[in-house]
């Protein structure tokens, strides 16, 4: 892979989906697939592509999957890694991300991967520190690497999303996964449906590019892909819906719903799952489920982005 002639990648950061062109997305997906096949052939899962480069993982919000996925991607590309997690960070002690960022810059990282509970923080960091940044999830704003790995997972099963109906169900209001996915899937030509309780899916969310449904059955009817989101129980306490049981009755994706979707419809979930809240275990574990593919593809997508942003030129 590293020896192959590398096409120019016109970005210095991956902050959100909007900035990526259709060609950029295809390039990222192709690169991820190439890296994936290289590692599939190898017994030793390591390549020196990022040897001598330092990646700083700044996770200022608890994360297991995304953090581990990035770390594994970095290790496979032989980058040196600095991990800073929420509990150990000065941010908890009241330091702003500006000061934290400046301090960290003194360690000369080549790229920062940032997860933050507030929207726009990666943009802020990129603007003020002027080094490559990958957004690993910012508040309720975006989670671009998740959307890209979701797209790769879909494209492994169906050759294109163009003209396909993809339904995203759950707490759209607070979901960066949903937001990045809608933007990406629309960009790639899919028809997107959004579904959830009206308290978590106001009409203005249609401006993202999805059609709004409040009835799960209607939302999944004829869909090629159904993507369920994790519903946080904290939202219930804040009064967005009355009880978990009521949420289950209205929005839990079950085998019965799957039958309404297109034959062989794909089922996705970014994890972690609340079984029997937003998804029936039988469906989550069925042949239609891409849930484990999503996890595996996460490493490939993140390797691709790291490589494209940091790998040797040409």
């Amino acid at each position: 892979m590293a020896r192959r002639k590398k096409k120019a990648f016109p970005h210095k950061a991956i902050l959100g989906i909007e900035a990526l062109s259709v060609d950029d997305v295809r390039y990222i997906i192709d690169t991820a697939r190439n890296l994936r096949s290289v590692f599939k052939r190898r017994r030793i899962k390591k390549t020196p592509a990022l040897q001598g480069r330092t990646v700083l993982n700044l996770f200022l919000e608890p994360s297991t999957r995304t953090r581990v996925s990035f770390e594994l991607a970095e290790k496979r590309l032989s980058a040196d890694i600095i991990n800073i997690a929420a509990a150990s960070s000065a941010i908890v002690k009241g330091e702003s991300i500006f000061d934290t960022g400046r301090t960290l810059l003194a360690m000369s990282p080549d790229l920062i991967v940032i997860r933050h509970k507030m929207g726009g923080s990666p943009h802020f960091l990129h603007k003020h520190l002027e080094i490559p940044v990958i957004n690993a999830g910012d508040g309720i704003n975006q989670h671009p690497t998740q959307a890209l790995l979701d797209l790769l997972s879909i494209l492994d099963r169906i050759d294109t999303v163009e003209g396909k109906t993809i339904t995203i169900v759950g707490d759209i209001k607070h979901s960066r996964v949903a937001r990045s996915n809608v933007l990406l899937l629309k960009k790639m030509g899919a028809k997107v449906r959004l579904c959830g309780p009206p308290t978590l899916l106001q009409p203005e969310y249609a401006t993202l590019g999805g059609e709004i449904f409040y009835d799960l059955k209607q939302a999944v009817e004829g869909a090629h892909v159904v993507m369920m989101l994790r519903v946080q129980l904290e939202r219930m306490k804040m009064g967005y819906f009355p009880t978990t049981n009521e949420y289950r009755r209205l929005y839990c994706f079950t085998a019965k719903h799957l039958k309404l979707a297109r034959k062989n419809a794909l089922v996705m979930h970014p994890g972690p799952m609340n079984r029997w809240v937003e998804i029936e275990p039988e469906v989550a574990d069925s042949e239609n489920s891409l849930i484990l593919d999503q996890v595996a593809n996460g490493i490939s997508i993140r390797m691709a982005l790291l490589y494209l942003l940091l790998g040797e030129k040409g």
Partner: protein
Amino acid sequence: MYVIINGHVIDPANNVNRKCVIAVEKGKIAFVGNRRNLPVEFKKADVMDASGCYVAPGFIDLHVHLREPGLEYKETIVTGARAAAAGGFTTIVCMPNTEPVNDGGEVTNFIRKKAQREASINVLCAGAISKNLEGKELARIGEMKEAGIVAITDDGHCVMNAGLMRRAMEYANGFDLPLFIHAQDYDLCMSGVMNEGENSVRFGLPGIPAAAEDVIVARDIELAALTGARVHFCHASTARQARMIKDAQRRGLKITGEVTPHHLALTDEACSTYDADFKMYPPLRTSNDRKALRKALAEGVLCAIATDHAPHAENEKKCEFEIAANGVVGLETALNVALSLVERKTLSLSQMVYAFTEGPAKVIGSAAGALSAGSDADITIFSTSEKTVIDTAKFHSKGKNSPFKGMEFKGKVKKTIFHGKTIYED
């Protein structure tokens, strides 16, 4: 003793809008009129040439945060007053959310005395409605009135308890004090940081619906009807609010409202960069709201442009948008922004001057804001054609948190005169 000549005088309170001369003696306006009618004793007085400039009553800003006592690292009475003078303001009303809060006579006295000693302009105080701005019990309003407050407000906080607000209105009536309303329903705002709508969806930031402001406006209009109180709505930001204020005025209620330069000039589109210099409460709204606010100002429904000057230290703004402090500085850019509305013919020049002088003076029942013979010679002389690029490094205010930084405008404050004395000169 001197005479300001060759300027175009705009004094809406006295229906003056033409070239004429102003004679000043012992800190008072002695004469305003044609040069040939100038009283003989001024014929040989010094002249101040205002050629190519407009001459207006010193500007009044009803809404300023001076931060002293307690938060002097953000701004002091002196630096805030200097910024005001540089912006053409000779009278400002400072908000009570200092530390300690201005909720009793001692803090009012501290501010008034310090301002008289050290500031070159007229610093008036708004006292708190509730003790420590907590919205629970009434502040010592009578005591503050004796110390000289001109209004009461819990600005920065909203009195959520309608019963307490009713009592505050009734109580304030006894002193003929207006209530400045900061309208914000906390249960609707939640953790919002920008206007709720298409752009908050686009930028992925928690939103504050217009209704969070409007429901309190509606409530307080009805409470004003119930109590007969003088109610003034601070920093109106929604189209609906402008409409409600207009309707209330038609009902004959004593309702007034102000609007900030930033709400007149900007929209929530500005939050796209996550730059916290565009974060304030109420948040920047939609272009539809902005249009309605401009119209309401031109119609006089909103009678004042007030800056809501809110200085903050750099680190309080140079951070994550969601945790950044609310508010922007405005004293030194207000005229520029207002003139840009005149240039686009949203306002006439005389409507603009009204919103900086007679309009706000009426709200607090002040004699300032007019160039009447015998009144204090508080005068602002400005150009409408000179170019200004907003350079925050040159601000007199300690706060550099301006949403207009780097922008180019036409117009400039050339001279600010307080009680006859030039306190700022370009």
